[in-house]
């Protein structure tokens, strides 16, 4: 049997975008999804995957402020966009209010869907700081969680909304 030719090196494309408020210039393989580039090329492993088929929502990140399934978006399509991942949620060591409430109220159990949940919740709260329970259910319906039964997540999002509305200040260097 004649040996098949080795596959050609996959083509790459130059990409410039903003990730977590930092400008990023990178050569990416054109077949790669945003999820793969974030996790494998940029070391941002906070974004998770549960199916890589757009079914579970674990990989949700914000692209120009909107929650997007990063497993369904080619990185090459992200030229010039602003991407926000779970790594960009805290302000230094200071947690974002939605992180604080998720931590305090039991909204993260295994923590695997949590980044996708947090980013989706964050997008909701940014456009509607005082969502109803029904609006929260609707907004988070694309992210599956097998641990919590969702109820503590709903409560955490509601509480985060209240914190955001009250503008609760956090102490400099507070890590919890």
């Amino acid at each position, binding site marked *: *049997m004649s*040996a*098949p030719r*080795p*596959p050609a090196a*996959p083509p790459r494309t130059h990409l410039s975008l903003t990730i977590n408020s930092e400008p990023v210039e990178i050569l990416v393989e054109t077949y790669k999804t945003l999820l793969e580039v974030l*996790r494998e090329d940029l*070391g941002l*492993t*906070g*974004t*998770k*995957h*549960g*199916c*890589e*088929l757009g*079914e*579970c929502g*674990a990989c949700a990140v914000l692209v120009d402020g909107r929650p997007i399934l990063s497993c369904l978006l080619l990185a090459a399509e992200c030229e010039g966009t602003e991407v926000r*991942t*779970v*790594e960009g*949620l*805290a302000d230094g060591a200071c*947690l974002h209010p939605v*992180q*604080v409430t*998720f*931590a*305090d*109220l*039991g909204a*993260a*159990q*295994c*923590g*695997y*869907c*949590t*980044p996708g949940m947090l980013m989706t919740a964050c997008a909701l709260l940014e456009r509607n700081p005082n969502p109803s329970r029904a609006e*929260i*259910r*609707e907004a*988070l*319906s*694309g*992210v*599956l*969680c*097998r*641990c*919590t*039964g*969702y*109820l*503590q997540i*709903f409560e955490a999002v509601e509480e985060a909304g209240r914190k955001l509305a009250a503008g609760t200040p956090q102490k400099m260097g507070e*890590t*919890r």
Partner: protein
Amino acid sequence: MKVVGKPRRRVDARAKVTGQTRFADDLVFPRMLHCKLLRSPHPHARIRRIDARAALAVSGVKLVLTGADMPIPYGILPVSQDEHALCLSRVRFVGDPVAAIVAVDEITALEALDRIQVDYEPLRTIADPLEALATPDPRIQPYGDGNVHKKVALEFGDVDAAMAGADHVFEDVFFYQGNTHLAIEQHAAVAAVDPDGKLTLWSSTQTPHYVHRALARVLEIPAAHIRVIATPNGGGFGGKSDPFNHEIAVAKAAQVLGRPVKICLNREEVFYCHRGRHPVTMKLKTGVKNDGSIVAMDLQTLLDGGAYGSYGVASTFYTGALQTVTYQVPRYRFRGCRTFTNKPPCGPKRGHGTPQPRFAQEIQLDKIAAALQLDPADLRQSQLAKPHSLTANYMRLGTIGLSECIDRVVEGSGWKTRYGKLPWGRGIGLACSSYLCGAGLPIYWNTLPHSGVQLQLDRSGRVTAFCGATEIGQGSDDVLANLVAEVLGIDPFDIRLVTGDTDLGPVDLGSYSSRVTLMMGHAAIQAAERARELIAQAVSAKLEIPQARLVFGERRVFDAQDPAQGVSFAEAVQVGEAMHGTLGTTGSYRPPESAAKYKGGGVGPSPAYSYSACVVEVNVQPETGWVDVEKVWIAHDIGRALNPVLARGQVEGSIYMALGEALMEEMDYRRLPKHLSSALVHKFPSMLEYKSPTTLEMPEVITYLVEDPDDAGPFGAKEVGQGPLLPVMPAVANALYDAVGIRVDEIPITPEKVLRALGDREAHRCGPKNFPRIDWPEPLRVPPPWEGGDGQAENEGPRRRREGAIVASDVVQPGLAPHPSTPEGRHEKSAERSPAPEFPEVLR
């Protein structure tokens, strides 16, 4: 108590909300290679030849492994060592792995995968238990009887005589469909050879200790030269508690290549790993008196095991073992049969083998209540098992908070004024349950501790807790920190944790059977109390305060009579270190000896049992059969809630998973048409098609934590991770009866089945019509405690004594045939004794 019982952020929460928790697939090492498995497209076939030449020619491919490279079988139970890292000469289900490719990156490995040519000879497939019973050939496994894996039969007292004396006998047949865990994290593992030549495996496993044993056995290297690190699991639910082929394959590849090798399964492959809920057909016969009291119960179960043993022998016993621990059952007969079929193996899913018979029992109780015109809640209250007693099958019960649980959900749901009185289409249903707080016996028989904790303290005030326990999201790390902090009077966040690592921590058997809180908890308390004792001796001497008066609290050690007199915790550790030298303590736990001495009595005993009661409210649309669960009231007897935030999360998560099982989740298979090979394939190997509840389906849940502390638990705590799942499915079915007068004796309760029952003008029922005839063996006859029994069977030969051996020999001599060392396995034909496998031709 300062820490125990206080609602609190879990110690690992910050890592989780910042995305910093390092799951297995997040690990990256220099020079790391990637592995992919070639899986069988046939449900049952002989492998004639594997041609890997074209794959090896792909640039970037480093290695191709086939079954012959790892020929030693393994399996979670010593009695069913029937798996191979890669199939030897036979594939047994669609998805069974045949070859592994290791390459520089994933895309190259995938490219090469397509170029492996396998010549298969398809064999007849066995699709379900009926076919398995009727078709002894071709055998799927070389052990068992034809395609029957295991038959068990136990009888506690003369059941037929008791039935003859009953006022009423109820007989029903039920079917519980299989379903899967669907943890969001796909299984992943990384193996690397350490600089000193030892092997390390990081894996999303619930049972690093058992993976450790399987690696030592298959790779034939000393266990002490292997380190298994369980990375935090992105959900487990039982689906990551077997040693898996992909873990062994990457370990072998790393050994051969001397480079780190990673594998991450895709979602379709996770469906093939399965080990989920067994589909079970059940026939339950119960004799009662006019007042509803049970005189005898007779249960038969038929399990669809899939292609391998997995936990199946234990699962089979579990379909019968816990029928006696909730209500008084004076006489009981249980017969169970597990069959092999050409489908992914079934195993333990949350509730392991007990949700199926629980479904049957609680629906039948509802039918009994209806027939005798009794209130279902009152009927249950009048029948509750007695605390601190032995059951007919010698399960030793501790506290039972079930009566209060029933009261709470009855009151909360307005049961007395609403049951039977809601408008057509709306109804409420009630069910109860109980569950283990840890299996009383380990998976391989030994006399060692089930859990160990080591503490190390130093002059900075640092406390580090080491334990093999595995964090799967349930909060085991938090329990460990919680209990040590409580005893030492410090904050849980002060404690550094090293868990799930077989090199660094004492053995804990793993996160299964709801055992961690109780068993690790006792070990943690013992280690912490020993540390406290050492420190207290030193502080007492230094401050000249009697030791008995010293209090550990608020990060201080002080005089109870004069709290100003004291030292900081760090200073206390310093004086302790000065007096005793370097401070370190250990604690360990082994469950009490079981009262069940008969063969098969190893499954079911537990140090304590948790109890739950549940009321579900449904709204049924008779036109479409659609069932909306609108509200759930759940009360769970947890003994004591160590951290109520986590306890509530476990309860609500159980309700969620249970509603998925009750209404939609289903592992279903179909035969392809003849022109497409008649192969048996998954209906739903994706998350989109395998329906599970989203945020939109989750109803309101009212959770009551009932605290009836059990002496057998750490600070009285019992389990909470699995028990609350059990009553939900039957409560939904019972609510359907209240709503529209139908019985759906089958899970999942889909709209189609509701419509079928509504259309059944006679029985108003949907469910299996009959239970197949099975040639049962003569049951082991064990007289119940109240009939003079001592826990042994009357008609059983002498059993091997437990004294003597410390550990089953397959631990110390990897590579040798395993001992059939579980109580069930002693007379079993082991998979090992099958003829030596013939390897297919492999071209490289």
